[in-house]
């Protein structure tokens, strides 16, 4: 049992004065200190968090309004710009970077009374599926310290499972919220592309970057998403939030009558037998509760990983060009000229995986290869989108596993980059297509969690969260 009540309950108690925000921050910081050996946290924002808690408690005392997340501590992945600690994206090149402004979502959460207490570990810049590409440390799985917590939001997922805070923020560019949620055993939500502002979040691949939410329940995640969602003039791809909001998702949702497609290409022999079994049992429960289950085939899905590993490195190589040693971040001091300053600052500041992705991206975008790689990948992306659109004519939701295996051992996949990239094989499609997707705990294999992935058409976040809430009750 978690030490935290539901977020709604925490906020209610803080609003009524029965619980002090200061006590909640203490509880959070204590858990972080006690579980330091899991290496989920890069830094705390202790001083600022305590100050904010005091302000909130003071508002309550004076009878002022304190917001629907009043006093609720949370942890942000270290690629969110947050006041009170450095923002490093777990990279050496950004060591010591002091955010001049906060991410839009941090400001929105703070406006409702939430308190950021710490920054979580990640694969540097989000490049990875295990946090083994962090320039600082590897986050351990809360269920088995010899295994990874997933990535790239591995620190955020582990922090939630270790009860360091009731929720954490991640990012999801190709599965970086859903996959660690599945490995560590919590809820991980990737919204429709554009639903939640990325302003103030360090860019990885702009055409698939989304803001992820990690929480212990779909109810908690829905409330947080509701606070963050909606148009932001600082991120020009943002879309309107659902007028009905997201935190009411359960009240008007029933499993009965909904059509759920189990994705054929995600249930092949390439996926661990135990994982398929857990998913099979979960889907049977949904069927018994009244959902209509059918098998759906999306024939181009096996191409999605190759598509992703062209499109995303291309965008990474472009986004990481800003780290040039001149404007911010690490700067090589003894360069003889500007060119050498660029070359040496980037060579020293970037880790190996960032370099590898910059190199791939540079190749696929370079003159003579652009059409064969980048343009062709964007055409296959269209094919994928068409197939998802057709599938959603037959069913309301799609379902399948999140990952082909449970959490792997630390070091198991680091020698072979292609093997590591395969950890994303069932999460990248939703990213390329821009649809919402969620991982919810569906069972365990030898003590290790397995997540069920559910997806819905673009902008159907509200019904997806509703389905997930109804499903979660069945698996509990």
């Amino acid at each position, binding site marked *: 049992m978690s030490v935290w009540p539901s977020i709604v309950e925490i906020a209610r108690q803080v609003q009524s004065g029965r619980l002090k925000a200061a006590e909640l921050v203490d509880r959070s910081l204590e858990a972080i200190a006690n579980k330091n050996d899991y290496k989920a946290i890069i830094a705390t924002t202790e001083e600022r968090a305590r100050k904010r808690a005091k302000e909130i408690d003071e508002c309550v005392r004076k009878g002022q309004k304190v917001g629907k997340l009043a006093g609720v501590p949370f942890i942000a992945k270290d690629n969110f710009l947050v006041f009170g600690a450095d923002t490093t994206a777990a990279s050496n090149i950004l060591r010591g970077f002091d955010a001049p402004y906060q991410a839009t979502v941090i400001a929105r959460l703070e406006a409702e009374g939430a308190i950021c207490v710490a920054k979580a570990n990640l694969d540097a810049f989000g490049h990875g599926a295990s946090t083994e590409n962090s320039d600082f440390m590897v986050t351990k799985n809360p269920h088995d310290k010899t295994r990874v917590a997933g990535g790239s939001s591995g620190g955020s997922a582990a922090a939630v499972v270790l009860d360091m805070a009731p929720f954490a923020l991640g990012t999801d560019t190709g599965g970086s919220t859903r996959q660690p949620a599945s490995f560590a055993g919590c809820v991980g939500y990737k919204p429709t592309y554009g639903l939640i502002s990325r302003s103030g979040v360090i860019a990885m691949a702009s055409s698939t970057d989304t803001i992820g939410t990690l929480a212990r329940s779909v109810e908690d995640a829905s409330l947080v998403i509701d606070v963050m969602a909606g148009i932001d003039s600082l991120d020009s791809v943002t879309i309107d939030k659902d007028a009905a909001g997201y935190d009411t998702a359960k009240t008007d949702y029933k499993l009965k009558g909904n059509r759920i497609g189990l994705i054929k290409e995600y249930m092949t022999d390439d996926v661990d037998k135990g994982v398929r079994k857990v998913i099979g049992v979960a889907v049977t429960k949904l069927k018994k509760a009244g959902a209509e289950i059918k098998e759906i085939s999306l024939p181009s899905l096996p191409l999605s990983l190759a598509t992703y590993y062209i499109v995303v490195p291309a965008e990474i190589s472009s986004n990481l060009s800003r780290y040039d040693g001149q404007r911010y971040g690490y700067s090589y001091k003894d360069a003889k000229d500007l060119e050498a300053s660029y070359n040496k600052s980037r060579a020293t500041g970037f880790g190996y995986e960032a370099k590898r992705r910059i*190199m791939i991206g540079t190749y696929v975008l370079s003159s003579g290869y652009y059409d064969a790689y980048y343009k062709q990948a964007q055409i*296959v992306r*269209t094919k994928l989108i068409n197939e998802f659109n057709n599938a959603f004519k037959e069913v309301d939701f799609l379902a399948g596993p999140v990952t082909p295996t449970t959490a792997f051992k630390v070091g198991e996949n680091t020698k072979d980059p292609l093997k590591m990239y395969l950890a994303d094989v069932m999460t990248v499609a939703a990213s390329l297509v821009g649809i919402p997707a969620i991982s919810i705990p569906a069972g365990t294999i030898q003590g290790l969690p397995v997540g069920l992935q559910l997806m819905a058409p673009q902008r159907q976040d509200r019904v997806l969260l509703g389905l997930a809430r109804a499903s979660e009750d069945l698996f509990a």
Partner: protein
Amino acid sequence: MTKLSGTDVLKLARLARLELSEDEVEKFRTELSDILGYVEQLQGVDAKGLEPTYQVTGLTNIMRPDEIVAYGPSQKELLKNVPAVEANQIKVKRVLG
């Protein structure tokens, strides 16, 4: 299947403004060849009648009035992370020879 040479790797590194060690050049030569070999499976896909997708929102031309908007952080705050500043400007090495 694409096989990169050491010269190819160095040319890419030059385009990406990355100085590589000899060891990195050798590792990238094989790793990038493997990764490109994997993604080349897309080249046989029938692309007839399909347009590339560059963004998925369906949004077009998001406009705002052409006026100054108060952005928030001051010039001082924006300059605090700059490695070298002179007269409130970012100082870099000579650009033109």
